[in-house]
């Protein structure tokens, strides 16, 4: 599909062709936005964090090493941006539960063919928000972002086998939350 790999494009950005970041933005901004949306359940915040990630890429482009997996590096930055944001706001992960009523993407009051789909999203978000941050992130990256275990292992600085186990346990936790609530 893509003639240039993410790594090649990022390397060009590193070497001063910053306009190439537009291509990476086009490839990843929807996924990244959904990564934040699913981990924070806040549309506005997710937009801001997505923008922050690309700003940080520009700022720290020199830290990207040639040939390194772009996806892993990219989502590491994304995690750091999110962690920094909540540190700055002095918000605990658990407070997401308290605020979820306000920040949950709301589709209430809408009719039509998308209603069932939107209800599904709402249930998923509410269930995800019951999980600890680490489990939520690893689940989103593996199942929703379809990231490979070796890439997840790099992001979380763990072994590939450990990544597999963590994804499985996160999925089990989600199932338990889901069954409790619905």
């Amino acid at each position: 599909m893509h003639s240039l790999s993410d790594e090649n494009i990022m390397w060009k950005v590193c070497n001063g062709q910053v306009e190439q970041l537009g291509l990476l933005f086009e490839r990843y901004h929807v996924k990244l936005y959904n990564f934040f949306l699913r981990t924070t359940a806040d549309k506005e915040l997710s937009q801001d964090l997505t923008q922050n990630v690309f700003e940080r890429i520009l700022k720290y482009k020199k830290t990207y090493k040639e040939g390194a997996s772009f996806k892993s590096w990219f989502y590491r930055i994304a995690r750091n941006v999110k962690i920094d944001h909540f540190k700055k706001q002095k918000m605990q992960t658990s407070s997401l539960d308290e605020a979820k009523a306000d920040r949950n993407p709301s589709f209430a009051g809408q009719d039509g063919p998308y209603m069932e789909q939107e209800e599904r999203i709402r249930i998923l978000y509410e269930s995800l928000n019951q999980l600890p941050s680490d489990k939520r992130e690893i689940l989103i990256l593996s199942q929703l972002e379809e990231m490979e275990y070796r890439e997840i292992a790099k992001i979380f600085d763990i072994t590939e086998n450990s990544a597999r186990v963590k994804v499985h346990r996160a999925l089990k936790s989600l199932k338990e939350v889901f069954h409790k609530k619905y």
Partner: protein
Amino acid sequence: MKYEDIEPYLIDFVKGNLDEDLEYRIRAYLNANPDFQKEIDELKDTLEFVQESPLIEPEPGLKMEFYAMLNAYQVSPPTEKTPVWTYILDVFQSRKTLTWGSFILVIFLAGYFTSNIIHQPGTDQSESALSANQAQEKPSASQAPYSEKKYQDQDLSAENSADEGEEYTLSSEDSKEPLAISEIEALDNEIPASGGISDELIAFEQRARSGEDISRDQLIKNDLNSDERIQNIYTSMKSVNQDEVIIQALIRALNTDPNPNVRIAAIEALEKFAGQNQVKHIIARSLDNQSSATVQLATIDLIVKYQIKEGASSLKKLLVQPGINQTVKQQAEIALELIS
């Protein structure tokens, strides 16, 4: 075999992604532990539930903000400068030069403060008076007749060298200068409009390109820098009273703005009106004028998203362009399939 040994592979087992050996080992465990089937079934249900959840599109403002940020970075990238203090400290580290260093510092500080006193607001009347005179002598761009304005625009572009520098490229084709209004009109004469286009539509397009109706909004004024032009477009997206003036200004920006970031912003904003047939037509036609790969990609996206079938001829033209960017080529081919 223990549960711990098969646990890392259970998700791939459910998805059917395992090699024969691992799958056999898990099935063997399942045979020895029939209760385990329940866990597998639940895992399967949960996976299906998670994976069937669709992605949500972010607000268009995200793209706008990104390209504005990228544009600002290109115009004035941060520079890594060595602080002046390090030089001063270097000087003072040497005892021999301490006296000279102190002397130079005193002179420097004295000069700095004297300069500040002289240049305080209100004291530099001669300079501000000169600027006012110059302003009076030089008519503004908006006051000038069209023929004069053309030359003024050239002056402005020459003065604003930063804007020239921010023109970015993805391929050698992108270094082409964007078409001037007259060139686009000439191009329009060469390429006959596709069948079924009404006179009204042609008139609308011509008005949009000439900008003759744009007096109230002045959305994309040429004397603004590209950041301000992008910001104006972004503001127009939030406007409640969208009307033809805004559409025309956006189309004009899309077809004539020298900065590709502005053109991308314009096409993003135009998406709001893409339900209108005349806007669809103009989006399709604009592909003929675009030389920036990024703008071409954004236009192709809209052609596919809104199933603009008349975009097929522009896509075909694009595909035979020499030096076409490979990503653009692939997307154009896919788009052709998707709209036909």
